[in-house]
């Protein structure tokens, strides 16, 4: 393993200190229990709190700021955070209008957020993100939450900023989540610092279709394909899932897993754009880049969200975070 690291034990904490310094105009970092929270707070606003294992940066801490999240609770690399982090974060950013937890559907995240919710002495609700269609809808623990999380957090973040109440935010988040489908492909595994070697082995001419974001193997190992063939596979699954009508407005998100250069992500975007356009979809909004990463994994995912006017307006609303910024 070659990484910039002093010790796996200090990586996360030191990195978060750096993150907070580099974005001191937007966020602050509370070291123990560990949470990142925004500088600008509003009373009467629903507080949005997300979190999960680290190693997916900029998700989630890169999304803390005006128009998006109020706080995040970073766990150890690929390990869900603990309830005390969520409780402390909630106390710190509560604005009197309740707390909404945005949780990716993983056993550890679900259970730890659930424990926090049970203990929290404030009105609260949770949204479970489960946009990863590489697993069947009927999967025993439901589908995973992956890159669609960014879309949900942005849109609900805008609504909360505009003063929507807790129930409205929750319902909106669930609506966006239902309108969103993602699927990913890995060209390489990733290396968890504490482990020091790649999580799975993959041959030079093989790729993993339907991977999650923790370096776990995907749904199937297949032979390497051209970018066009890969896009056809991924986009085909998404169309099968969402069954969008011709003329439907969509948001197309090409998400890199960390080690895939932008030149390739924009190629994938163009090919996906052509694929969806041919099927009559109107690509109204786009997001291309490394947002929900798996450390140093090479690969990417496609995410499509069926937009209505409301969602599109909230997507366009001002946001000022480390990783997403526009309109302000």
């Amino acid at each position, binding site marked *: 393993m070659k990484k910039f690291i002093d010790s796996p034990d200090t990586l996360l904490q030191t990195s978060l200190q750096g993150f907070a310094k580099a974005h001191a105009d937007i966020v602050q970092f509370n070291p123990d*229990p560990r949470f990142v929270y925004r500088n600008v707070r509003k009373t009467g606003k629903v507080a949005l709190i997300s979190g999960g*294992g680290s190693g997916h940066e900029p998700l989630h801490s890169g999304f803390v700021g005006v128009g998006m999240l109020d706080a995040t609770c970073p*766990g*150890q*690399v*690929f*390990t*869900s*955070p*603990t*309830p*005390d982090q969520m409780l402390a974060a909630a106390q710190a950013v509560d604005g009197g209008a309740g707390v909404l937890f945005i949780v990716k559907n*993983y*056993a*550890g995240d679900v*259970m*730890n957020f*659930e*424990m926090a919710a049970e203990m929290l002495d404030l009105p609260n609700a949770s949204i479970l993100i489960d946009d990863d269609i590489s*697993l069947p809808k009927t*999967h*025993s*623990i439901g589908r*995973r939450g992956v890159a669609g999380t960014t879309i949900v957090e942005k849109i609900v973040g805008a609504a909360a900023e505009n003063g929507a109440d807790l129930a409205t935010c929750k319902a909106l988040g669930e609506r966006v989540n239902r309108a969103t489908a993602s699927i990913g492909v890995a060209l390489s595994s990733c290396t*968890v610092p*504490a*482990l020091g070697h790649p*999580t*799975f082995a993959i041959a030079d001419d093989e790729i993993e279709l339907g991977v*999650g974001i*923790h*370096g*776990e*193997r995907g*749904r199937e190992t297949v032979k390497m394909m051209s970018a066009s063939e890969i896009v056809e596979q991924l986009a085909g699954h998404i169309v099968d899932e969402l069954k969008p009508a011709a003329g439907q407005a969509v948001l197309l998100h090409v998400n890199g897993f960390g080690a895939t250069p932008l030149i390739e992500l924009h190629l994938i975007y163009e090919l996906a754009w052509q694929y969806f356009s041919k099927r009559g979809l109107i690509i109204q909004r786009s997001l291309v880049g490394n947002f929900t990463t798996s450390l140093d994994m090479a690969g990417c995912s496609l995410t499509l969200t069926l937009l209505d006017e409301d969602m599109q307006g909230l997507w366009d609303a001002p946001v000022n975070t480390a990783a997403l910024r526009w309109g302000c």
Partner: protein
Amino acid sequence: MSLTPSLFPELIQALIDDIAAHAEEVTELDQAIGDGDHVFNLQRGLQALHEHASEIAPLDWVAAWQKIGMTVMAAVGGASGSLYATLFIALAKSGRDKVIDISGFSDAFLQAVEAVKLRGKAEVGEKTMLDVLVPVALALRDEAAAGKSLAEILDRLCQVAADGVEATRDMLATKGRASFLGERSKGHIDAGAKTAQLMITAIAAVLKKSCD
């Protein structure tokens, strides 16, 4: 039963040593069908307990379990963190109105394992730590009811735990990360089941020694 949490520092040290000795093996298991962090999660928890060991030692069992649960909850994270935190907090809760002898403990432990099932929405047979915890809890109840000696009971529990681990090998994972692999999850032992067994066996060894 004259056992008290004064044993706790020794127990934790035994667990730390035993998990360290099996760290690579556990990591390989969690990497095969999970995400490879299980041993680090456990070790973070054990380390935190080690740091609080002297506070815990003078407590009574109920207070000790509560403190253990809260410590694990804040230190571990991941699936196993919330499950073990739930186990100990539930143990404290159901132990509160009991005399903590073998029979009282076996009742409380069975209830605590039920709380883990609820937290994880899981049952025996889904290739998780429950495939060790549940049969061990049941065996403990049965052996205690049959009036076996502590040494006999501990031997039996170690055997049941070992069988439980082995049983996970051919199971299809339907909970936890391994479930994402579907059929590919078969043929591998579950890491969380393995560490549950390791810890039960290490605890048993300490208890047997201290009762000699």
